[in-house]
């Protein structure tokens, strides 16, 4: 298997991003030529073709940028993770080899990945801790930013000042100031984290208690990270039409009911957007311990770039799974078929005499 990988599959990996780029270009040119030929023959260009043409045109600059500067890097890092990369004067890729039970030399393309688990004892633990703390932090950030956004959406005095204050930590979060602040312990709630919580948590196993302790020690840091989320929620809140609130008021709905029945459903897409944004920023944040591990491994003499690339890919898979879970939990469910559609289906089934279909439709309604 190793031979086949090294000879056939891996060298092709480098060209993958360019395949996308070429694909977009080819589709653009084909639709352009098609449109020109139709135009020449005096036939009007079809709307779908015209739309596709504009679509490719609008998307081309982004595709060029992402393919050349980002995807090629991503594809290459996947490629290098199966090799041993040497950067002396020129770049050199050495296939990874090992010995089988009989002492023959065999190719072992997955050696980097395996040694991440065998040698890097910190890595699986850090990864698991990260996943647990992410699951804990996400609801807190979303709830906090939603509450703040709801409060700031009202017409209170000094709204602009408050908005600025809540957003500002985002701006300086990347700066050296943040590390100074964390080092001096400004970002934790000292009383809480040391006494009450700690005494309760001793009863739990460590893999649960540790992330919760971290959560409290970073509570303020977490709140500082929610500026963009507040901004997105605010923009979403202003899209909720006022007439809905007025109608609810007339019907005698309380503020609490209005929030659950009107505000929250309208904000659903914003909650999804914010959740994904939060997961992504938490995962790629430079203060993340895993990023630290990867960075150190990449520039360490004994490990090197290939090793770091293998770690990165394992990490990316974990983040992707977490994102997928978030997405599946929060996405909008498909609307149930409305009564009218159902009735029309039943009528047409009756007319056509399709008993099987009719029974199915009626049965579905009974079940619901």
């Amino acid at each position, binding site marked *: 298997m190793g031979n086949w990988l090294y000879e056939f599959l891996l060298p092709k990996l480098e060209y993958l991003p360019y395949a*996308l780029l070429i*694909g*977009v270009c080819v589709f653009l040119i084909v639709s352009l030529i098609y449109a020109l030929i139709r135009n020449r023959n005096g036939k009007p260009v079809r709307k779908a073709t015209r*739309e*596709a043409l504009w*679509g*490719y045109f*609008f*998307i081309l600059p*982004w595709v060029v*940028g*992402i393919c*050349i*500067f*980002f*995807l090629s*890097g*991503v594809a*290459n*890092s996947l490629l*290098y993770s199966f090799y041993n990369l040497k950067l002396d004067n020129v*770049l050199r890729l050495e296939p990874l080899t090992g010995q089988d039970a009989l002492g023959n030399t065999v190719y072992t393309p997955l050696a980097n990945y395996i040694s991440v688990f065998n040698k890097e004892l910190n890595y699986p633990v850090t990864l698991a801790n990260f996943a647990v703390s992410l699951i804990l932090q996400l609801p807190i950030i979303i709830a906090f930013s939603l509450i*703040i956004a709801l*409060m*700031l959406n*009202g*017409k*209170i*005095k000094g709204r*602009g000042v408050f*908005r*600025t*204050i*809540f957003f*500002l*930590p985002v*701006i300086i979060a*990347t*700066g050296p*100031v943040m590390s100074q*602040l964390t080092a001096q312990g*400004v970002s934790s709630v000292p009383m809480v984290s040391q006494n009450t919580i700690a005494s309760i948590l001793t009863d739990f196993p460590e893999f649960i208690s540790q992330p919760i302790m971290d959560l409290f020690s970073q509570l*303020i840091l977490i709140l*500082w990270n929610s500026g963009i989320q507040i901004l*997105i929620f*605010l*923009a979403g809140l*202003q*899209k909720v*039409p006022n*007439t809905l609130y007025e109608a609810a008021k007339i019907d005698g709905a309380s503020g609490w009911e209005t929030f659950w029945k009107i505000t929250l459903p309208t904000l659903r897409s914003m909650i999804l957007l914010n959740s994904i*944004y939060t997961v*992504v920023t938490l995962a790629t944040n430079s203060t993340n311990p895993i*990023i630290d591990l990867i960075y150190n491994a990449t520039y360490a003499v004994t490990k090197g*770039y290939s090793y*770091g690339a293998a770690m*990165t890919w394992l*990490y*990316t898979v974990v983040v*992707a799974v977490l994102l997928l879970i978030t997405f599946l939990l929060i996405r909008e469910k498909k609307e149930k078929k409305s009564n009218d559609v159902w009735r029309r289906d039943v009528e047409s089934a009756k007319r056509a005499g399709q008993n099987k279909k009719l029974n199915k439709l009626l049965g579905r309604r009974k079940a619901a």
Partner: protein
Amino acid sequence: MAVGGTKVNPKKFHKNQIPLYLYLIPIAIFMGAPIIYIINHAFKPMDELFAFPPRFFVSHPSLVNFRNLFQTTAGASIPISRYIFNSLVVTLAVVFLSILISTMAGFALSKMDFKLKGPVFEVNNIALMFVATAVTIPRYLTINTLGILDTYLAHILPLIAMPVCLFLIKQFIDGVPNSLIEAAQLEGAGSFTIYRKIILPLTKPAIATGAILAFQSVWTNVETSNLFTSSEGIRTLPFYMNTLTSVGTVQGQGMAAAAALIMFIPNLLLFIIMQSSVMNTMAYSGIK
């Protein structure tokens, strides 16, 4: 139009608002802490910077850190204005181009129908969650191949396609009602007119958020100067600030604090300018 959208609450101060303030003000103080800290830290004289336990507020403000900073820069072979100019050119170019590209791509991905639409958005989602450290070496090789090492392009081009920007803007454009676009098409508007007259004005909040994100990531970026340039005259301000403050001297700490404040001020100004124009656009936009 939802013009009255925010007029539910009374215009003047009302006693109903007091509980709201009771929540908001303490949280705001928490959130504002780092800002107050940076400003105070920059004006601390040497003995207060190293005081133990560290103090939050400055008790004897002085300008000594700033004086040190500017004295050091005055002796350098390349004036600080050169770094500032480089930073401005790079930042403005990246912010403008990345927003242009992201809005165009977001419009196409959200409102147009064509083959390859799915794969392109999937690619963006992969790009979103990939760790940036892992692409530095391949990116260096690409830039080397293109022959743009040591130019402004080496600063600008790698940062233009920002997956986060595209993602935010695309999600916002999803919220623009299709009926608005269909109405414009009936009136005979082409795709470019729709982009310019409908999409751009209606997604202002997302554009502003994206612009702030892009600005922040470029303005504080040391990596491109570090990796893709070798001559001093083409490097940017954050890189210069880093070299000054990473010397490890005692003075370096104070200069770091002063430099942090200087780097922070443009961010603050940008946000204050943006925020008023951003917040209220949705209410008047015709989106329901």
